């Protein structure tokens, strides 16, 4: 079968998406496990005019930078067209299309081990004694 790749964004006008990428996994506290929607992950800061960023997640601070992707990534969405009059037996005959809904050219990459904010503060406190 053939799945056509469609693009309705028009000439070179694909909306740009962004990637924030970090090593490892962000674990959500058990209380929030079932209601992630709208939950804040962290705060992304750009402290200077350089393309360096910090990302503060809980007690951790990550340092990273904005890097262009060597090759762009397309965001494809699978779309199933099933005719309403068709019954469920013919469901696998429904036409599938891929639609380009976005393009990604940059990611903000955090690849260094996070700094623990608490412990460094503690350390400061200890040092001041």
């Amino acid at each position, binding site marked *: *079968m*053939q799945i056509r790749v469609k693009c309705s964004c028009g000439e070179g006008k*694909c909306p*740009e998406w*962004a990637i924030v990428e970090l090593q490892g996994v962000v674990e959500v506290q058990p209380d929030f496990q079932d209601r992630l929607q709208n939950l804040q992950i*962290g705060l992304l800061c750009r402290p200077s005019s350089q393309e360096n960023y910090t990302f503060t997640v809980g007690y951790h601070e990550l340092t990273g930078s904005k890097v262009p992707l060597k090759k762009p*990534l397309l965001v494809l969405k*699978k779309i199933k067209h099933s005719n309403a009059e068709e019954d469920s037996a013919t469901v696998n005959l429904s036409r599938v299309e*891929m639609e380009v809904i976005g393009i990604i050219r940059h990611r903000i990459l955090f690849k260094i081990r996070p700094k623990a904010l608490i412990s460094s503060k503690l350390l400061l406190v200890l040092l001041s004694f």
Partner: protein
Amino acid sequence: MEQSQPDCCGGAAAVLNLQPNSSISVAYHPLFGPHDDLILLELDEKLLPDVLHHRVSFRGQPDEDAVLCTRSKTYAVKFVGTSNSVFLIPPSDPSGLHENEQDGDKVQRDNKAAASVIKVAPGSMELVEVAPRLDKLKMLLSENPYKFDEVFEMDELNEMVDCNTSLYRWDDLIDKVQASDDELRAALKSLSALEIDGYWRLVDEDYMDGLLNMLLHNSVLNEWSLDALHEDEVVGVLHSDGFPCKIASHCLQVYGSEVEGGSRGRVWRLDERRVCMHFARGILRGGKIKMESFMGEWARKAPEGMQVNFDMLEGEVLTEKLGIQTWVYSYSVSSLPSSPAERFSLLFQERPKWEWKDLQPYIRFIFSLALPSVLCAVPFAFSCKSKGGFYFSCDCFSRDLRVPGLTSDGLLLKYTRRTQPTLDADPVFSAR
């Protein structure tokens, strides 16, 4: 939505255009979830225009690995996973994403200082250019070649069309064969397939044999020159002999090449090599034969004015010495699979050791990917000895292996062991 904030105030743009000395909250999107219908595809910049102009598609049956085809090329699609957390942030008003959204979510989405993560991408799809997978094409077309009886049994044909068995339209082939349009077209040409009543068909070997003989017979009767056959005249005469016009002119294309014609329509010259090869194949279909008998019979069968030459059969036959006799038998490169691993495996089953001059015609490679693909070789693989011989053209382009990214030296290194008893001896290749 009552307020129409410009898109730059949230979502991806806010992240990508974050001003110095400022910050933005990154949160899970109101619609955050696995979103398995969202796929990331890594794509070379030069393929982007093809995508934007709707010239690419995924092809393959559910049990095959999908390929992505542009007009002229075929790419394998590989999933590359990552252990990083890849937070995917759509634009603030991602078209196509919020179709299921409930009213309550809107309030949250308009939160200007936040960028929302719609999903964590487990990885992305990457593309690797590959040779088109054409093995299946010959198999499909070989199921039901065009034969003598079909001309007379039109009723049966109609029946066949009705239940649609083993007849394939262009769109059916696109559905079933993993190749780009250009590659498929080139493969159909090199298989000498033709479109009859909307269906792509091969013509049965016996039928082509009868047709070619009738053409040669008529050329003697009517004193036509084999170097300047006028299509209208030839097709007219063959038609009166009972051959459909379309197939008669197909015969000229298969065995001839067009020459600069006069005012009287298209003019063709029969190709010595292709015609002679046709008769050689006919003889060898009887099995292994002594060299002298073969050459004698071949020369007798060839039309007057054409010279047979054993070199014409490169890649078509092998010889072996039994005692003092040399025997020749049919071993056609077009019957070998297109994947290098399978092809080398079959070659070494045929012979454990190959001299370079024998091996070379069976492993010719084209690795210049810069060539337009119509010119590029069309590898094919199949073995279809089942239903008797079918006609396959053998122009020099059609027989080569094409393996993007690998040179012939690379393939030899990978699949063969090269031995050279002495410095001046010819190298011998055996299985690795």
